[in-house]
């Protein structure tokens, strides 16, 4: 009897775990793009945010009602960290917030994945990274195109829109 109880508990926990996996399929379901319709009754509504949260998240005001609950919670958590950021970081957050929110779930997943990969592979110094980005952007378009892995050799993911 006790064994059966434990087996059922384990099965339920595993089922919950599968549901919580951050794979593309589940995040795509939960993390709808900006084009998603207004989500009625989802909280917190924009009006329920504090004045401070509204000021920090102002670039998202027009899109707030289309965000899934989980994404609203994420932005609230980021807003909590905002006062502790350096002025330059705050300025970047303000500038990038809307662009980030407007990316498709697949693009956000890809950016996170690339960020993690770079961190894993002994991330170069910020100065070197900035320089590398400048050099890369200065390459002729054809040369840059040649650096994009072909679908047969690269990861099986769609090329994001720029």
């Amino acid at each position, binding site marked *: 009897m006790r064994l059966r109880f434990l087996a059922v508990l384990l099965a339920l926990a595993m089922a919950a775990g599968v549901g919580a996996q*951050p794979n593309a399929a589940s995040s795509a379901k939960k993390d709808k793009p900006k084009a998603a319709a207004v989500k009625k009754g989802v909280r917190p509504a924009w009006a329920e945010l504090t004045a401070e949260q509204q000021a920090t998240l102002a670039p998202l005001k027009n899109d707030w009602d289309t965000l899934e609950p989980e994404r609203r919670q994420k932005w609230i958590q980021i807003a909590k960290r905002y006062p502790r950021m350096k002025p330059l970081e705050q300025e970047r957050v303000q500038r990038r917030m809307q662009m980030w929110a407007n990316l498709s779930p697949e*693009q956000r997943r890809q950016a996170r994945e690339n960020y993690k990969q770079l961190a894993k592979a002994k991330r170069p110094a910020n100065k070197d990274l900035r320089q590398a980005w400048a050099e890369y952007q200065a390459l002729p378009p054809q040369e840059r195109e040649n650096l994009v892995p072909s679908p047969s050799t690269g990861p099986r993911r769609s090329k994001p829109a720029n």
Partner: protein
Amino acid sequence: MLAVAAFGIYRWQESQRLAEVVEIDTQLLTDDLPIDAYLDRGFQNFLKKRAAEQ
């Protein structure tokens, strides 16, 4: 009892996942490199080749 335990585990896993997303999104939003750099697979390849050459 069983349902409460399973729900508790589920909620904990969800909160862990949210914390991870908040952490990495904060880093991406404040990073020295623009978000475009992390969306550009050509640039990711460029960095790999550069690192291999050094």
